[in-house]
């Protein structure tokens, strides 16, 4: 029993190291891409995609979200939806102001 736990933790540790390497690589990529001075819209999409991937890695593996309980996943889903509402707030502001 004891060793089973240890074994699973060790497996975790291996995952952490892999994720760490991935995060470093992605950081390198996003910084390098930024030196290319891509057109702003492209740059935004690319940078946010990379950040999104990095953030998902952190959340999924470091924060164990990938194996987290239903309650938490549900609460976070709600939060993400409302976060998206916040993100469209500027859209709702500029969309069709009859200026």
């Amino acid at each position: 029993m004891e060793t089973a736990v240890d074994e699973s933790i060790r497996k975790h540790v291996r995952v952490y190291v892999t994720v760490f390497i991935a995060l470093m690589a992605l950081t390198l990529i996003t910084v390098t891409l930024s030196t290319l001075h891509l057109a702003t819209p492209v740059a935004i999409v690319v940078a946010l995609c990379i950040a999104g991937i990095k953030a998902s890695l952190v959340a999924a593996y470091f924060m164990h979200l990938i194996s987290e309980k239903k309650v938490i996943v549900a609460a976070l889903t709600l939060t993400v939806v409302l976060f998206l509402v916040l993100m469209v707030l500027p859209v709702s502001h500029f969309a069709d102001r009859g200026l």
Partner: protein
Amino acid sequence: MEIPYTVEPRPDTGLYNAKLGIWLFLASEVMLFGALFSSYVLLRVGATTWPHGYEHLNIPLATVNTVVLITSSVTMVMSWASLAMKNIRRYRLYMGATIALACVFLVIKGFEYAAKFEHGLYPSASTFMAIYFTLTGLHGLHIVGGVIVNSYLLGPGSRMWKTDPARFTNRVEVAGLYWHFVDLVWIFLFPVLYLL
């Protein structure tokens, strides 16, 4: 009467109290930073001109800081894993590293701020500077909070390892969740402020 489920998970939710609590708190943090990001977008879209981050900010320093913070996230999760493997010494090592890295982050941030101030770039200089200082400042405060909590868990708080190891491990896990979140915010701040 003791409060149940402080250590062992409640069967139907599968969670101990603090775990749910910290996730809810993080949900509110998502909305806090979400609102600030949303303000950033609204101001940027509405602005006639907006500087590229690299024109004003120091990308190499920020890249180093990104590396530092990501590393501290790894050491944080390793400190928890060490506890889960009942190795308090290794826990101390990793936790100490986490705190040290956080301090490195703050010091580098301090240099960055100082350089800006030297050039007369205060928050009032432009909307870009305003949002830069507000976002990084608030993030910095979160780091400071994390350092305080982690130092407690490294120092006086670790006495609990003797009396109630399971609960202590939970505490470290919860502190870790917070710490990863602070890292996660930076992962977005970095490109948004510096690279775009």
